[in-house]
């Protein structure tokens, strides 16, 4: 519609503008067309300026007004669309990170606590789950939080898992005192810990120990999650396409680290001694 209006206005204005020029040309032999010193040329100029020019100006003005308005609309649309995309990505992240198995098992455990009338424990677990979900929703995938905050959330998650695994899950924190104020991407540790529980603890009858450590090495923050399970089998890395259930959270972390730090990060998997898997994240040490 807009294009049609512009074309219509344009041809109308052009016709009006062209009319006196045509009249002028018809009256003169070729050699005198560009000679503005004669009277008919001056008449032509007067005619152009007095009749057609304001119309041309009006048309141009209208054209730019409509164009600007449309541009503004487009911009607004674009920003709304990117906002929606970011939101979608955030929800997707939540879906990827919160393994549906985790929710299923937790809700089942809560239901059992309710059935056996252990209301206090049931309430405690519901509160922890809701705090954990709240935290996941409150932060966008590219947000950074203090390591202290991140560890607190990891503890919420681990407390919930502790109800399921009881004495089979042993936890060990080795956090250097002053690194707790370092900033880390939100929900960085939870998927790694979940991976360690899945491979290092849940498959073993006797359970296992998970050690979470953080230390500063020069200008870098080194975070490690270590389990004492079977470790890497044949060098197979979690996050590979064939290990989808464990890999989604881990490859999601890799993408986020790349998005935040570019090449100034590393995420590695190696075998621990005497057995187990070490997942090591190295990012720049940053307190802002």
């Amino acid at each position, binding site marked *: 519609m807009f294009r049609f209006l512009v074309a219509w206005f344009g041809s109308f204005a052009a016709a009006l503008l062209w009319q006196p020029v045509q009249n002028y040309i018809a009256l003169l032999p070729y050699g005198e067309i560009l000679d503005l010193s004669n009277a008919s040329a001056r008449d032509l100029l007067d005619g152009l300026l007095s009749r057609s020019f304001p119309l041309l100006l009006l048309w141009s003005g209208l054209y730019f007004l409509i164009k600007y308005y449309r541009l503004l609309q487009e911009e607004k649309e674009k920003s709304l669309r990117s906002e929606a995309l970011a939101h979608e990505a955030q929800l997707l992240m939540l879906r990827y990170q919160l393994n549906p198995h985790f929710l299923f*098992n937790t809700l*089942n*455990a809560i239901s*059992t606590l309710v059935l*056996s009338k252990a209301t206090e424990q049931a309430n405690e677990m519901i509160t922890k789950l809701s705090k954990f979900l709240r935290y996941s929703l409150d932060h966008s995938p590219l947000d950074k939080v203090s390591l202290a905050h991140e560890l607190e959330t990891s503890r919420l998650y681990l407390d919930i898992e502790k109800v*399921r*695994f009881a004495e089979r899950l042993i936890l060990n924190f080795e956090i250097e005192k002053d690194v707790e104020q370092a900033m880390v991407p939100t929900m960085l540790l939870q998927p790694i810990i979940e991976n360690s529980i899945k491979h290092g603890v*849940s498959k073993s*009858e006797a359970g296992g120990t998970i050690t979470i450590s953080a230390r500063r090495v020069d200008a870098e923050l080194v975070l490690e999650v270590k389990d004492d399970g079977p470790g890497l089998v044949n060098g197979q890395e979690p996050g590979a396409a064939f290990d989808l259930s464990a890999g989604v959270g881990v490859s999601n972390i890799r993408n986020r680290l790349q998005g935040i730090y570019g090449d100034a990060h590393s995420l590695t998997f190696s075998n621990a001694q005497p057995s187990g898997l070490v997942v090591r994240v190295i990012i720049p040490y940053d307190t802002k």
Partner: protein
Amino acid sequence: MTQNDQQQLTAIVVDDEDPARQGLELRLQEFPQVSVVQSCKHGREAIAAIIEHEPDIVFLDI
């Protein structure tokens, strides 16, 4: 047919996670025709229990 006429079924529950195992046992209490004769934490315990009780049903976490 009344409930007393129904055949009694024996069952064994196998799950390594305490809440899951207890949850299943509690839910099975709603069925008077099912009696849980033993619940086991792992496979070896389950095999021994199956040999001993020869249950009609085994609820096994896989």
